[in-house]
């Protein structure tokens, strides 16, 4: 049993200090390596100690904290683009058609307070799979054969802040690392010249590394297609020196460093720091390139703007694709406006308009580049909404509902053209194959080749997991 096999809140086995009095346990050695780690690949602090900091596969090549690592089993996807539909999208208007609800529009329905509110939108069978799709997703509808639509998710507490935290970190109140942080902690990232986890806007809590080292925190990029590129990443370019000048400076520092090292012991941290400057030097160009969508052909830019001209979602998803293409592990895009308490005929349509075209373009684009097989795209919000009408005199709306929520996944090893789970006849409660966020997390990690029960981090004497003590991989969703 390796240290990473240990679960939280149990008596540790081989690494229990009781068993090795006086020595440093494997867990604390691993902890040491991670705390004093190198935030990119290719160097071996670990080798000094003869230990792989992750020890996922029993001591494969020694690694830096962000260098790409094999997971626990073969991965179905290399990268993830998580589209966070903030505000809690309605289910019965998007991905869970409910003819019974429409039939009972305006009437009391058993088991619910208030009056049924049928969806104002029509659903139509799409693709070979014939999955029914709401008219508001005219573009995405063409991709149903690639998508697995989950209809039976649920959230415990239908409060925006709390449920968003659960969706991202698996925990309603504790400060836990989020999905993206765990992914990069477990797998590293391919491109060492870009951060492994990038969040294109959204609140700080959705990209937090909490007790994981800071390098696993989502790098916050307030991407705005209108803003100058250099304002996007802090300190990404110099306003004071040319690249040639910087090259000379770095070369001087390198020579001084090697003289300094000659007087001391070989220290992997010091070596790593030299390399950090080389990477930073290259990063200046590479990051600027990655965020520069003007380098895309007009036809591609147009495709991402289709129907989504109002928002920034198109540009953000295009940047997301560019990042994934360059080997970034996890990109998070927040697309808000789903908190539709009133006038859903308009508010939901508008929310959908900002993402329908862009998300469809992303799937098309990934596919035509052969990236869809290795990129998992997830769309979902923090909870769902009631099938009954919210109090409103401003056009009928829907209230918060934690008992049923929707999400879809596409690409990256997902079984396409299916729906998973079901709600009751009116769509307010998940009843069949109910799926907790922990199960969603477990499944996403599994697609990435990570066993959610073994991806642990020891903090304050306890091994923590993304899925706490819960979570089941939903195999039906995996191709």
């Amino acid at each position, binding site marked *: 049993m390796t240290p990473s096999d240990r679960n939280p809140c149990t008596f540790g086995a081989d690494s229990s200090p009781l068993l090795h009095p006086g020595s440093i346990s494997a867990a604390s050695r691993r902890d040491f390596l991670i705390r004093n780690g190198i935030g990119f690949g290719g160097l071996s602090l670990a080798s000094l100690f003869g230990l792989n900091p992750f020890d996922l596969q029993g001591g494969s090549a020694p690694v830096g904290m962000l260098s790409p690592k094999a997971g626990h089993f073969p991965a179905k996807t290399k990268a993830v683009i998580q589209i966070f539909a903030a505000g809690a999208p309605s289910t019965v208007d998007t991905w869970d058609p409910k003819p019974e609800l429409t039939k009972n529009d305006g009437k009391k329905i058993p088991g619910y307070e208030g009056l049924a509110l049928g969806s104002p939108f029509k659903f139509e069978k799409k693709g070979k799979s014939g999955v029914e799709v709401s008219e508001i997703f005219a573009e995405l509808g063409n991709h149903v054969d690639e998508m697995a639509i989950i209809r039976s998710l649920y959230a415990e507490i239908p409060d925006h802040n709390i449920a968003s935290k659960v969706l991202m970190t698996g925990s309603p109140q504790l400060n836990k690392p989020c999905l993206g942080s765990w992914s990069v902690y477990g797998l590293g990232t391919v491109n060492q010249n870009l951060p492994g986890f990038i969040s294109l806007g959204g609140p700080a809590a959705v990209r937090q590394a909490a007790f994981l080292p800071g390098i696993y925190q989502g790098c916050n990029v307030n991407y705005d297609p209108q803003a100058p590129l250099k304002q996007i990443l802090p300190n990404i370019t110099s*306003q004071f020196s040319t690249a040639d000048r910087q090259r000379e400076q770095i070369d001087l*520092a390198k020579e001084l460093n090697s003289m300094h090292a000659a007087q001391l012991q070989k220290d992997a941290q*010091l070596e790593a720091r030299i390399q950090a400057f080389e*990477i930073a030097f290259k990063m200046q160009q590479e990051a600027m390139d990655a965020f520069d969508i003007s380098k895309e052909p007009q036809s591609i830019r147009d495709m991402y703007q289709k129907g989504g001209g109002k928002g920034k979602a198109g540009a953000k998803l295009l940047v997301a694709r560019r990042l994934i293409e360059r080997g970034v592990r996890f990109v998070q895009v927040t697309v808000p406006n789903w908190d539709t308490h009133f006038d859903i005929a308009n508010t939901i349509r508008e929310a959908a308009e900002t993402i329908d075209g862009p998300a469809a373009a992303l799937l098309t684009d990934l596919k035509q580049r052969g990236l869809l097989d290795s990129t998992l795209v997830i769309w979902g919000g923090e909870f769902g909404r009631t099938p009954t009408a919210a109090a409103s005199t401003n056009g009928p709306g829907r209230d918060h509902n934690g008992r049923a929520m929707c999400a879809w996944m596409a690409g990256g090893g997902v079984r396409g053209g299916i729906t998973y789970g079901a709600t009751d006849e009116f769509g307010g409660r998940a009843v069949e194959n109910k799926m907790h966020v922990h199960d969603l997390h477990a499944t996403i990690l599994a697609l990435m080749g990570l066993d959610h029960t073994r991806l642990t981090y020891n903090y304050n004497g306890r091994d923590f997991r993304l899925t706490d003590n819960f979570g089941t991989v939903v195999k039906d969703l995996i191709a």
Partner: protein
Amino acid sequence: MHTSRFWVRSFAIFFASVSTWVWGAGTPPISDVDLQFFENEVRPILVEHCQECHSSLKGKVKGGLDMDNRESLLKGGEKGPVFKAGDPSGSSMIKAVEWLDDLQMPPKTKLSALQITTLKEWITRGAPDPRDGTAVSRLTKADHWAFQAVTRPAPPAVKNNAWCKNSIDKFILAKLEEKEMLPAEPPDTGTDEQRRTKKEALLRRAYFDLIGVPPKPEQIKEFVNNVSPNAFEQVVDTLLESPAYGERWARHWLDTARYSDTTGLVAANLRGKEYRYPYAYSYRDWVISAINADMPYDQFILNQLAADKIPQNPKKNLAALGFLTVGQRFKNDDDVLNDRIDVVGRGFLGLTLGCARCHDHKFDPIKQADYYALKGIFKSTSEPKDGPVIAGDPNSKEFQDFSRKLEALEKKAYSAFYQMQRESSEELRKKAAAYFEASYLSFKPADAETSKRAQSISSAQKLKDYLIVDVIHRRIDPRDPILGPFIQLVTTKENRDQALQENLFGKTGAARFNPIVLEFLRSAGPLPNQVDTVGALFEKMMREKVTPAAGTPANSVADPVKDLEHGGIYKIIANPKTIAGSPQQPLMELAVFPFPLVVGSEVSLSKMNGFQGKFGQRYSNELVKRSGMYQINEMKLTSGSGPVRAMVLEDLPTPIESPIYPRGNMPEKGSRPATVPRRFIEVLSEGHTPTPFKDGSGRYELAQAIASKTNPLTARVMVNRVWMYHFGEGLVRTPDDLGNQAGKPSHPELLDYLTSWFTEDYGETKPAWSLKALHKAIMLSSTYQQSSSSLLIQRQQQIDAGNTLLWHTNVRRLDFESFRDSLLSMAGILDPVMFGPPVNLVSEPYSFRRSIYGYIDRLDVPDLMTQFDMAAPLEPNTRRSTTIVPQQALFLMNSPFAIAIAKNVVRRSEVIKAVTNQKDARSGVIAVFQIVLQRTPSKPEFDLAMKFLQSTARKQAEEAAAIAPIAAAGQKEAEAQLKKDQNIANDDGKKAIVNHGDLVARVSLTPWEALVQALMFSNEASYLN
């Protein structure tokens, strides 16, 4: 100690070491995997769903089935065994939980499919069960070294006595000699050149360790030339007396105290409301002062838990209570209390007490009852709306200016609050019939028709939907003092006249409803019964009974600002004491409808904050916009000239005990969970039997129990931390957890020796609990003064690569604060001003204050700080990571801050001469090395630097021309950004503080500046050796 139990314990440990847990004679061994499975998956099911009724310990053994331990479970109940190991389908237990037959267990709620699968799997595995019915685990836990009394071991004998400067060295050397290892060289050996290098390194180490900034060139020179045997001691003494010492070590403590300037309230994630602590800095400043004054560590603890309870305590010490109050806030008060228990546990005791919130601690001898005993203590406290003023001169001009400005801001905010209410009330009165009708019909409509009717009224009359949904709907209640009677007019159908007579005009009605409403209805003639006609009546009442002039001086309602000044209606209701029970109350109540009277009364910032919860987001967003309410805390946070307030806690008049939450969940309504008296935790109490606390909440008694020499953890925890900050690693490597998960210290005897010495009082020379004395003892040891070089001793590298035995000094990276402070210090621009409101550390215009004065936003720590491994202020995090990421390099390469440093280093007098006069280039290069790296360059280094200067000088014109357009564009952008940031009207509470000052001019660097920046890139500038 109970010897027989002790034997059981040793027995368990013995067998544990062959990697299989053995729980007592007669119990088959259980494998690691099975044990884990049982503890993680099975035990929770049994505890939560079975043992409520099947537990002899709980006194309930229904059906004769006791599931407390393996033996009794195997035996089964009245109907015999409940399972066959290995055969789930043949087990009656599985049939029962599957609800297949008549016997359905648990009777109320069926287990989830997953739980049933788990139980099946468990039986398939042969029902491995570690529970042998004895309390083995708890006793084993308490046997851990850290729970044993601190001893005073004699320093061991060593061969090389000459190396040892004090007892610390003997403990270290003994272990090295055991392995035939040698310590690294002391600073005073070797050639002159070697001695100089080592002394420079030692001096630098001492400066960074104690004050967090490097020595100046003249200080280096003085120390290198001082051959007195006391030279280093003099340095240590001087540094300990420097106020910068407190700034350095307070920052360490703030990591433990999870210090932040913001609440981190979950609801504030999206920043819908005020989330800043305007006076958190009063705690930070107290810590700096206390550490500078070498406040004995026991006093340091007492103050932070109970400053208000210490007899004759100076008022300024009240700020110490910020330790408890600057933590993270949550929507749920239980979570806030948990934060306080956690910080006390990890901060003072090195115990993860928070683990006992849901169950007895899995590793340490902490019972769930211990947790709730402490919870009762903090539950028995409250925070005053405004903390006591502890500093600021009320007669000073600044103070008075501040008060005036604050008053103006508050007046503006509160006026907006009243103004919005008034507008809403007036809007409602104007269309009272329509509002009544639309609100009534849209509130839980019985059919679609009703709902549509409400909508058409609303759109025809242009009603404000948010007023209906967010405000009026909350008063659609037949008991509401204003609306209630009208609602009853519509709803009362049967026996109408009599019912109305009784319900409205009878005794209950008089107590419940507004007398003006009742009087109006009494004289209204025949009472209508339809929504629209009742609505019309409601409007009539509002029109007749509430007129702008009623009950207020003339003109007052016309302008709410004037209104406040002249004592109009809103001024009156602002003071509930004036209004409560007064003859004006009924009229006021009507005038502020649809808001309840209490909302109008006594407005404050926190009340405005709470508004969102009460009345929906749309109303609240508008209020934020119009009131400018964020500017109030913004000003308190940034002004620095007003009163300073302490973030105190006070005891409730009547202290309370906390119920024990089953599995950490709030007890269900109506249930009566056991409570536990406020007391200290059992394992640390004398004889393991704590006495309940009697003095108020018990905070002072708790503090005394912690700040005690006989507490085995308190002093050990602190000594270990101080050691960690001096050596890079603690004797125990987990500074916030000395429990069973921590493992043994690398030098247990040394830890005890130092701990007992630390708490001992030796009079003038060494007071009890003195941190300064501890620093000195550590730093004057040979162990501390070793060189960091380990090149010469390859063999030792193989034996102890991690340097656990301390055979050389660890190379350490500077933390964020000392790294930034050292840059400012070398540039000669470090602003020495101490204390006061926080400054922005990360954006232009830059502050040049020390990093401890930086603004820390708990939920949004700036990327720069995160990239340099600043402690996350979410929880106590005494130990920082030291990761290396390219973003750190980018900061040094490209940030205007780094450029400002390089430019200012060159402006220093030692350097500027060389810049202007080629002949002085030589002294200039040496000065640059001494300033940036605090040492003299070697010959090859010197040559390299000269070559760099020449080469860059040749290309300077080309470089300047290339960068000019980029710099100009950058300058423009920076100016535009600054203008935006400085406009206080833009403050929606979402942005950090904006400093005053200048932008860094965007121009290309001179060769000298480029040289300085290149030296800043070098590893040495960021590392200590």
